[in-house]
Each structure stands twice: as C-alpha cells, then as structure tokens.
C-alpha cells in the first residue's frame, strides 16, 4: 500500500511559473486520469515528481509514504517505487536495451539477477507487448518507431514493478491493436500488484480500457476540476470550452496572471459539487 501526496506544489521552468499550488493524493489501487489542453502543465507535474532537473519546485511538498520525495535523487525516486513512462522516451546510442533493462532491475536488488531469469522476464515482457525480439538487442530507443518507444516504456514498467506509475501520453503513437495490448499489460500488472496510477491522455479510448477511479482537469497549472469518468465523456464530446466558461478562464492567458488564485477557488468549487 503506497500513497503519493502532493501538497501546494508550485513549479517553474527557467523562472517561468508553470504549476501553482497544486495538490493531489494518489493511493495504491487508484487510477487517476489527468486531462487538460496542450501546454497547461501535465507533463510538468509528472516530470517534477520523477525529478527532471529542468523543473524547479518553488513551493510545496511531494511525499511518498511519508518520505520526502523532493530530497531524493532521481534514481532514489525510481528505487522508492516511482515510475514515469515518458511522453518522449530518450534515445541512448551505445547502450543496448537488454543491458539497460538488466541494470535497471539490478539497481533495486541486493544481488544481481541471474541471466537465465533475466532473459525469461525480458522475453516475456517483449512477447506480451508483441515487440520485435531484435529490439532487445538494439540500442535503447534508437531508431525505434514512435509506437515501439511507447511499448518499450511499458516493458520497463512491467520489469520494474513500480508502486506509483505515471503514464504520460503513452497511448499517443500507438495503433489501435497496440493500444489494447498496452492497456491489457498495464491492467494485468495493476491486478497482480495494485499500483497508484497517474495517467495523462487526451483520449477517451485509452481511459475506456483503464477505467480510472478519479479524473482531474489541469488548466493553467492548477487542477481546476476533479470528478469521475463522466467528466472524460463530456470533455471527449464537448472539448474544454465549457470549463473555460464555467470557471471564467481566458484560454489565451498562459497562466501568468492570477492562475493560482483561479485554481484554488475553482478547486474548492469542484469539491463543493459545483459540477
């Protein structure tokens, strides 16, 4: 049982504020859907939790089971159970996928995994995600197609078995069959070892497979609205305009003025059942 607790988090990139006073709690077994228009801070939130050095926390806290995540290095966060399937997985020439996966597994073990056991696990994961077997021996993500990169993120997730899993648009770039395959792999993992999940996607289709327990809308760096699955349906059919109108948000305002204030009021509104 794990709990990730984000409190009053404000984050800047190059001194430009992106997130303001954002609070969110994710428990094992819960799947939180995080939606919002482009460029409003979803990836920023996930990257900040993972520890991407581009993002500076200016206020607030992130705790995992009572431990201060912000004081941990990136590799410590990973070993503590946090995983981020990235929106744009990075290519690492010179390092083979299988060597990398083996190191990643060994990083969280006392004694190194036996080769036989490792190959069984890796080949199993690659098979489940219907990836070409040669991808194991190619350089990490180098020359992988968009969809292959996304599947490879899930291969890593399967092998690392996180307690808090974050998926940043893992569904974009996947063909329809792959989308189901990836969703099944995630659900399978979630059933055997329930994770707390924070899933960013723009599309209802992916959420239809995953059945999120919570849904949040992030605009101008704040969660302005939280609810359940019907929120996804409404965004899917109507877009975000009604939210802008309802909360008096000017979408051309890039969060520079009064977004913090807006966010706080609106969140309160949402919690009061003003939907």
């Amino acid at each position, binding site marked *: 049982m794990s709990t990730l607790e984000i409190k009053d988090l404000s984050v800047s990139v190059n001194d430009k504020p992106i997130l303001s006073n954002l609070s969110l709690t994710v428990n094992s077994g819960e799947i939180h859907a995080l939606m919002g228009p482009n460029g409003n801070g979803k990836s920023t939130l996930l990257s900040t939790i*993972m*520890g*991407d*050095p581009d993002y500076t926390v200016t206020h607030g806290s992130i705790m995992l089971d009572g431990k201060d995540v912000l004081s941990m*290095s*990136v*590799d410590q*966060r*990973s*070993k503590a159970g946090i*995983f*981020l399937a*990235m929106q744009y*997985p*990075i*290519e*690492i*020439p*010179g*390092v*083979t996928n299988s*060597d*990398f996966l083996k*190191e*990643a597994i*060994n*990083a*969280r073990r006392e004694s190194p995994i036996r080769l036989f056991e490792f190959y069984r696990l890796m080949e199993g994961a690659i098979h489940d995600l219907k990836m070409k077997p040669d991808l194991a021996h190619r350089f990490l993500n180098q020359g992988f197609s968009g969809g292959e990169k996304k599947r490879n993120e899930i291969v*890593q997730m399967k092998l*690392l078995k996180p307690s808090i899993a974050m998926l940043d648009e893992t569904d974009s770039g996947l063909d329809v069959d792959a989308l189901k395959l990836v969703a099944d792999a995630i659900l399978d993992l979630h059933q055997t070892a329930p994770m707390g999940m924070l899933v960013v996607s723009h599309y209802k289709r992916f959420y239809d497979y995953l059945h999120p327990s919570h849904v949040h809308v992030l605009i101008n760096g704040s969660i302005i609205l939280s609810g359940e699955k019907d929120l996804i349906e409404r965004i899917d059919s109507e877009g975000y305009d009604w939210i802008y109108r309802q909360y008096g948000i000017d979408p051309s305002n890039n969060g520079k003025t009064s977004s913090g204030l807006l966010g706080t009021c609106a969140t309160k509104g949402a919690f009061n059942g003003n939907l």
Partner: protein
Amino acid sequence: MAICNPIVISGENHLNVVEPLVYWQLNGNTNLDVMVQPNSQVTLVLDLNACRSVQFHAMVQPDSILDVALVSMKDQSIDQHYRITLQNGATTNIRSCFLGNAKKTMKMEIIHHGLSTVSTMEHYGLINTANDFKIEAIGTIEKEADNTQCRQALRALTFSDHDHVTMVPSLYIDNYNCSASHSTSIGAMSPKQLYYLQSRGLTMESITLLLAKGYITPVLELIPEEELKTQLREEIEKVVIDACLTKLQ
C-alpha cells in the same frame, strides 16, 4: 593462469608469432616487427599502458588471420604507428579501446596487398580530458588486391563540452573490385539522457559502466580466452569508473 601475466616487450624486436594467443605489455619506446605464418590464426593482445611510443609492423602471410586487441587506459601520453600488410587471402581484425585522459595519437594503416583480403578496424575512445586525442585510420587497397573488404569504424564518447577528439578515417583505393566503408561517431551524454537512465534507478556509477561497456566489450570479444577477458574487463572497468565518474557528475 600463466596467460594472464603479459610478456613485457621493449626496444627493437623482430618476432615470428606462432602461438595462437599472445599477451604483450609494451614498455617505453617499442619497435615491433611481427610476422604471422601462412595458414595460421593469431590473436595479439597489446597492453599499451606503460608504452610511450610504438612502431608496429605486421606482415600477415597468405591465408592467415591476425586479430589485435589494443588497450590504453593510463593517463600517460602515447604516440603510435601501426602498419599491417595483408598478403593473399589474409584477414585482420583490429579493435582498440582508449581512455582519452592524456595526449594520445594513433596512426594505423592497413595495406591490402594480396587478393581476397579482409580487414576490420574498430577504435573506441572514452574521452575525458581536453587533451589531444587523435586517431587516423587508413585503409589502402593496392592495385593487385582484387576482391577486398575493408571496414573502419571510429567511435568516441565525450563527457563534457571541453573534451576534444579528432578521428580521421581514410581509404585509398586502387582496385575498385572491393567493398569498403568507414563510419565515425562522436557522442556525448546529454542531461536528458542521464535523467532518463536515472529515472530507471541507475546511479552515475552504473551509467558510466553501462556506457563504457559498449566501448570495451567489442575489444574484449576478440580475445578467445575467458580468464584473460575477465581479468582485463575488471582492470578496465576500475580505471573507467575512477576516471569518468567525476566527469559525469
């Protein structure tokens, strides 16, 4: 176990190599003239750590194979000239790995003299100082050398923007019934790449080793003796961690 201790070589030498595996440590300034017998297969492992300059000439006689693994990890400058001549049906595979932590220069020429000759050259540099590091790889295919294959690959990994490296592959072809290729790549770890690897739990130390492995393994693979391979791997990995770790941080 005996094989794991190198034979120390220095000064002027003319050697006929007959054993299948030779492990030499070159000392100071060394001149080496090596003859590989016809129809034989020889692997030379050259430890250059204590070597300041080397002039190496090898004649690979008909239908024989010469594999050479070169290792230079110490922070001592070295100047190297190699010339390997291939007679009819001869093959040579040369792989080197360098830690670029001092002025290191190498000029390596492979001369395809006979018919049906094959050469592969792969040089790997892990560059961690701003010192001079220069590799010149030359493939010469002479007029008589029909049906030749000549392949060169030069790779270097730098750890900071201040590291300098020069790698020049060249091919001189007088007989076009051949297949020849060369490739050069110089890469550096970007902060994004480090972040990605760290986000999977890897520490700076394991990242350094993982990267270095891609540069060391191909060289060790030439060595047909497991014990020597393991010994060299351990020696090299230790040096690499000590030398590169601080650069990555």
